[in-house]
């Protein structure tokens, strides 16, 4: 490879600016820092705590049966965020948390790109029924990404956790599939029966 050639990241999900891919060991230091930045994370993340989780015998690599971490990397290289995806035994239902490094000049563009790329990836490969993201209410930029990507506010839980010393609300933003929107139970409820 030419020494001047820029490394192009490849991922499961590829947006205009970023890719989403599984976390590699080389990402851990950056990921620990990003986890600590996310106000939704109640744990004080350290590199050691994250490394232990990464080396878990049952679910190594932050890639488990019910919870998986994606690194969000610039297409030209460099981890700038993460997305934590969870699901359970109910088919096609996912709930997530995400974070893009605070203070980046292009944070708004990266965040929207990451959310849109993730949604496209799920639609292409996993036939989701519904996909949700939890966001703390003061995180307006994250809310903006989700709304622009087609997610809508579904549930607000007041006084959920401390943010800068104050009780704050957690908001759930959700994308619904056509299959869910057209399910009989949904129609009955919409009709108010």
């Amino acid at each position, binding site marked *: 490879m030419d020494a001047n050639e820029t490394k192009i990241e490849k991922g499961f999900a590829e947006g205009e600016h970023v890719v989403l891919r599984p976390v590699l060991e080389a990402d851990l230091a950056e990921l620990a820092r990003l986890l600590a930045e996310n106000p939704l994370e109640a744990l004080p993340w350290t590199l050691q705590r994250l490394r232990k989780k990464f080396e878990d015998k049952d679910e190594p690599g932050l890639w488990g049966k019910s919870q998986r971490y994606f690194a969000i990397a610039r297409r030209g290289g460099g981890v700038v965020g993460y997305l934590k995806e969870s699901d359970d035994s109910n088919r096609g239902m996912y709930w997530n948390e995400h974070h893009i490094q605070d203070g980046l000049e292009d944070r708004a563009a990266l965040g929207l790109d990451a959310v849109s790329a993730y949604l496209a990836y799920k639609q292409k490969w996993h036939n989701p029924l519904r996909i949700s993201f939890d966001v703390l209410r003061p995180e307006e930029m994250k809310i903006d990404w989700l709304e622009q990507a087609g997610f809508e506010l579904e549930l607000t839980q*007041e006084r959920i956790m401390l943010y800068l010393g104050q009780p704050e609300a957690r908001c759930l933003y959700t994308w619904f599939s056509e299959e869910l929107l057209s399910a009989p139970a949904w129609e009955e409820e919409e009709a108010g029966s």
Partner: protein
Amino acid sequence: MHNIYTGKRVRLRPFSSSEEYTNIDDKLMEVPSEYWGPHWRPLGERTEEYAPAGVIDPASYSAYAIERLDTGQLIGVEEHGSIRPGVLWTWLGTHFLEQHQRQGLGTEAKQLMLCGLFESFPLETVYAITVANHRPALRGLERSGFRYVGEKRGMFIADGQPVDEIYYVITREEWEQLPVRQYVTRG
């Protein structure tokens, strides 16, 4: 920190042994819930869960025995979720043997659990979650002092159809107004 709360009709207390815990869970799982469907956890998993601290571990999960005061029978399980620094909420749940359901015992069990939670931890809110078609649970939560917050659409599948999950909450201020605080016995 108290771990026994007694009301007028029921008492919450720690399980006295691993056998007591697994036996009631066996009985609860024998009859699948009409609303939540069949549920199974292997014995080994539950025994392991009991071993470290008798299933009372605020950092992860706690389960209390619900005892009927008139007969002394163990009739169900009251449970709550993790309590972590900086996090101002947790959830609670109630499971009763079928023959003791719909007698208003769950209302008191929930209120006793709320006393334990709000008196012992710096929580601001306690949530309870059920499914939209579970009308007895919805009524029971309202009787216990909870109020409707919202729903997650199609989060649960029952009878092959998506069913909404319903969220209820009670705040610390709302709990402070409940009469149970005046008659609960601790310890």
